[in-house]
């Protein structure tokens, strides 16, 4: 089966440009890696994104996407840290789908953003759901 990464939506391109240069480059390298490892991300467990079988890759500035066996060292979480604030803060949310003949797998990147942003800012999951709504609207 051949895996293709769909051309990035302008909104996702804009999110990538909106991150700092290092994180943007890491995100792009993770997106390229999805062509080799389409199930790299974890399955989302809640809401619309879960029902659409979407996945998300966790990443941050100290990640090396080319390390196929995981990062050499993980940032330890202290006991007083909220799990939502510890570990990689960024997510690449994507939707994988296969053609019926199982010859092609398509990866559509829905969002690149922070998982738990400050109040008033959309999370990567909210951005992903917005794009999913847009691309699934009927042609007018």
């Amino acid at each position, binding site marked *: 089966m051949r895996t293709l990464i*769909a*051309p990035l939506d302008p909104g996702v391109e804009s999110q990538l440009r909106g991150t700092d240069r290092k994180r943007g480059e890491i995100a792009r390298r993770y997106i390229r890696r999805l062509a080799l490892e389409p199930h790299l991300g974890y399955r989302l467990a809640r809401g619309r994104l879960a029902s*659409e079988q979407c996945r998300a890759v966790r990443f941050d500035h100290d990640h090396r996407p080319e390390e196929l066996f995981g990062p050499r060292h993980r940032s330890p979480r202290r006991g007083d840290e909220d799990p939502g604030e510890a570990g990689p803060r960024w997510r690449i949310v994507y939707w994988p789908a296969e053609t019926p003949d199982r010859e092609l797998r398509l990866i559509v990147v829905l969002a690149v953003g922070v998982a738990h942003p400050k109040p008033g800012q959309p999370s990567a999951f909210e951005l992903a759901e917005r794009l999913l709504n847009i691309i699934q609207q*009927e042609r007018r």
Partner: protein
Amino acid sequence: MTVTLIRGREYARLMSELPSPVRSLTLAEIEHQRDRVYEELERGGAIRVYTNDSQHFLGVLTRDQRLLDAAGIAQLIENGHIPPLDELVAMDDRGELP
């Protein structure tokens, strides 16, 4: 290690790849039993869908992953968010995809 016991009838159903359970419902009945319908679909079931007056068979409601994926990809192409698949493959061959 996790061992799951699958009884004969359930094993036969799983091996046949036929959906189960299967029911016939109208659109209104589906809306009325939304949670149950969703749970049955998630279990591998299918709903034969009829108009509210039961006079017209509309189709089959399913969460068969192959159909979901096919419909999703087709919609992306129809809505112009991605090019047709042969074009997409050619773009990949030329190194134009991310």
